[in-house]
């Protein structure tokens, strides 16, 4: 897994390439924790290049969501069909403070129009 951080209208975007599993999910979690400590209230993860994610990744998303949902939100960009289905099965995709975007453009539109969905 490789992780780089970019910005979309000032909102941090974690660009992840590879597979997110129990082994490397803590790295993603630590990066998100740092951003939250820097008072970021909205965080995006670009999952276009993630072909696999297990519950290690789900746990990190759940714990980020728990911290962001008071006044912020968490979004993922372009997860593949399998990852998207996993997000639905664990109920993340049903949460009002969790958003799934089909593309970077959709995410961009969302962060520009409102900080909260």
């Amino acid at each position, binding site marked *: 897994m490789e992780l780089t951080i970019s910005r979309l209208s000032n909102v941090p975007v974690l660009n992840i390439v590879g*597979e997110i*599993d*129990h*082994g490397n999910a803590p790295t993603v979690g630590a990066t998100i924790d740092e951003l939250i400590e820097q008072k970021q209230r909205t965080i995006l993860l670009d999952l276009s290049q993630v072909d*696999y*994610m*297990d*519950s*290690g990744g*789900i*746990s990190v998303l*759940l*714990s980020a969501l*728990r911290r962001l949902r008071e006044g912020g939100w968490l979004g993922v960009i372009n997860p593949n*069909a*399998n990852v998207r*289905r*996993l997000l*639905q*099965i*664990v*109920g993340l*995709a*049903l949460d009002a403070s969790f958003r799934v975007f089909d593309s970077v453009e959709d995410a961009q539109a969302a962060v520009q129009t409102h900080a909260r969905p």
Partner: protein
Amino acid sequence: MTACLDATGRGCFTRTAIIDGGSSCLKTVRTFVEEAASAAGLRQDRAFDLKVAASEACANALEHGGNAGSCLQVSAAGFEDRLEFEVADGGAFRLPHAVDHMQRAHRGLGLPLMVALTDEVRISRPAEGGTRVTLIMYADRPPQAPLT
């Protein structure tokens, strides 16, 4: 891959692997599952679900099964209508300690997730000790419907 016959006398296969419990262990499990799923003719989305469920079972064996840092024994058996994946560890199945139970935030997702992603989960505690988890996928079923 060994040829074998199932109860009905039709062809099937079994594969086993001893996987080193190092940092790339779960990656090796995924490759093992992927190859077995493809040999069994499982759809690609179902293979993904089985990979996630198998990772869960193996992560538990490593974390709770007294197998941390050591190796995992996994096997896959293909039948005409289904694929069975199995992981066994030598540790007794134990509940989280009460105090942990109070503190765990997103823990306890593992078993429900295995059930949600596969067609059948069997967890047994063999007489000789340890914990064995079997995940079964039927070849002809569609993937799980999402939560609504």
